[in-house]
């Protein structure tokens, strides 16, 4: 197998649903082997449609899709062997045992029973579900169900793992442990594509990010380059002493939030270091400093809203969930 072939190659992909809705309008996308790739976009942008087409649950209208060089039009079964999909919704049989769900999935990929059981044990252990192996899946917590779907998707050891909102609805601790797990399998060679609403997740995990909006890819670049487009950020400064008024800082826009905090706009090229001297001179002691909004969220909102990143993008996260504490 030629290692230069993209893990996923999409060219001119379109999808029109029976009701006339044009979900994809000509998507071009390449994900290289070993990538940790985020596909971001607002609801209805076409993320799940792309995943559906790769996994065969959605039929494309036109365009090319290949997985590690295997064209889905010519040899979909071969392409499917290289893909593991973790869907957004729980879609396993709620009455089956955890172990059986994973072993059965391995069987659908033609894995012999003994190997299937070994793999099921391996991934259930790695995802902390081994002690639940005999439980009916409906008895699992939401986080456990999410991990079960990841174990099921990995049991045939695909080279490309696609996760559709993998940490939706899971608590912070579990989310962090899933991130660690995904980083680990990515370092071991599995190419990962994820869609997420937690933009902190994409910023933290992914080396490349594509943004899809209204069925078209509007950005496809490295996370670093994408974030470099940000030309201002808003920070919140908490002070030890109560503030009587908003501190005025030369060259920085400021706004009082409450008696112990204010926000400051830092533009590209300005240094955070330069903030502290004038504050200290005025007897204001900074107790903490934080980014008001996730940087990527700010950029994302400006991009999908059609403006430039430097436009007055709201530093709030309306429509998006906060990623972490």
């Amino acid at each position: 197998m030629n290692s230069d072939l993209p893990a996923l190659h999409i060219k001119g992909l379109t999808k029109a649903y029976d009701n006339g809705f044009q979900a994809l309008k000509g998507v071009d996308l390449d994900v290289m082997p070993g990538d940790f790739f985020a596909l971001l976009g607002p609801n209805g942008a076409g993320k799940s449609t792309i995943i559906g087409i790769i996994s065969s649950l959605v039929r494309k209208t036109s365009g090319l899709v290949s997985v590690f060089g295997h064209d889905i039009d010519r040899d979909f079964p071969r392409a499917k062997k290289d893909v593991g999909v973790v869907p957004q919704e729980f879609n396993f049989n709620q009455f089956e045992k955890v172990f059986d769900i994973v072993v059965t999935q391995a069987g659908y990929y033609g894995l012999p029973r003994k190997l299937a059981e070994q793999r099921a044990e391996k991934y259930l252990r790695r995802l902390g579900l081994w002690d639940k192996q005999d439980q009916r899946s409906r008895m699992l917590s939401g986080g456990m169900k999410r991990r079960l779907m990841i174990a099921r998707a990995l049991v045939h050891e695909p080279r490309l793992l696609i996760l559709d909102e993998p940490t939706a609805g899971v608590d912070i601790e579990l989310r962090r442990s899933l991130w660690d797990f995904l980083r680990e399998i990515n370092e071991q060679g599995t190419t990962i594509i994820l869609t997420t609403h937690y933009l902190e997740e994409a910023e933290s995990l992914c080396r490349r990010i594509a943004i899809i909006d209204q069925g078209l890819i509007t950005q496809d670049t490295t996370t670093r380059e994408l974030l470099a487009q940000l030309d201002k950020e808003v920070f919140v400064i908490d002070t030890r002493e109560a503030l009587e008024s908003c501190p005025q800082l030369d060259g920085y826009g400021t706004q009082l939030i409450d008696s112990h905090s204010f926000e400051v706009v830092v533009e590209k090229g300005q240094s955070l270091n330069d903030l502290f001297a004038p504050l200290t001179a005025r007897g204001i002691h900074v107790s903490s400093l934080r980014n008001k909004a996730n940087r990527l969220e700010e950029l994302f909102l400006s991009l999908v809203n059609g403006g430039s990143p430097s436009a007055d993008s709201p530093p709030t996260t309306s429509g998006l969930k906060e990623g972490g504490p």
Partner: protein
Amino acid sequence: MSAREQWIAFLTLMVKEIRRFTRIWQQTLLPPAITIALYFVIFGTLIGPRIGSMSGFTYMEFVVPGLIMLAVITNSFGNVVSSFFGSKFAGNIEELLVSPTPNYIILSGYVLGGVTRGLTVGFIVTLLSLFFTKLQIQHWGVTIAVVILTSVLFSLAGLINAVYAKNFDDISIIPTFVLTPLTYLGGVFYSVSLLPEFWQKVSLLNPVLYMVNAFRYGLLGVSDIDVRWAFLMLSCVIAGLFIFSLHLLKNGKNLRS
């Protein structure tokens, strides 16, 4: 997928299907056994002696083959329609659809699950019938072939019903308004020779009549129709349903958007 991988996928699906209906045996195996046992008691023991002989046999002897077929038909159909639609409704059919398992393996796995349940219930009912009458099978080959082909046919029909069904009402309409009338009017409880000539001809349009009579021929050696027609009809209908089912799976009817 290699032939070996396809074989493993087929076994996996078949075992999963068998495990499903045996896990809920109180819903799948016990009720038909009780229902048919009640038929034996009421029609065979209580009412049967007043009816007298039919086609040269006591009514109990005559009705046993029909009741076995009734159980086989309803359970083969019911197993596939409820399992496939249940998987579709819950979403876990996607486990199969995203895998490289070919459509004909998916179809065969579900059908074999339905056949296994149909034959299991048929065997239980046959055992129960021995409490009420003696069975001396006249033509083993015909008996076994007819019961298997009938079970395959209704398993395929169950899958087609499940593919088209969009809610639970849709999977009860066919059994209630099509399957039950065809079965009850298909010579389970009577010989069509008792009907006026017009209704005898109308009955010949009912495929279940051929299956029940062919099975009765295998068990008792008597039939209202030519058994060769039954085999021809069974083979043709099975081939047609198999091709149509594959077509539905390939096109992803109500399965892929």
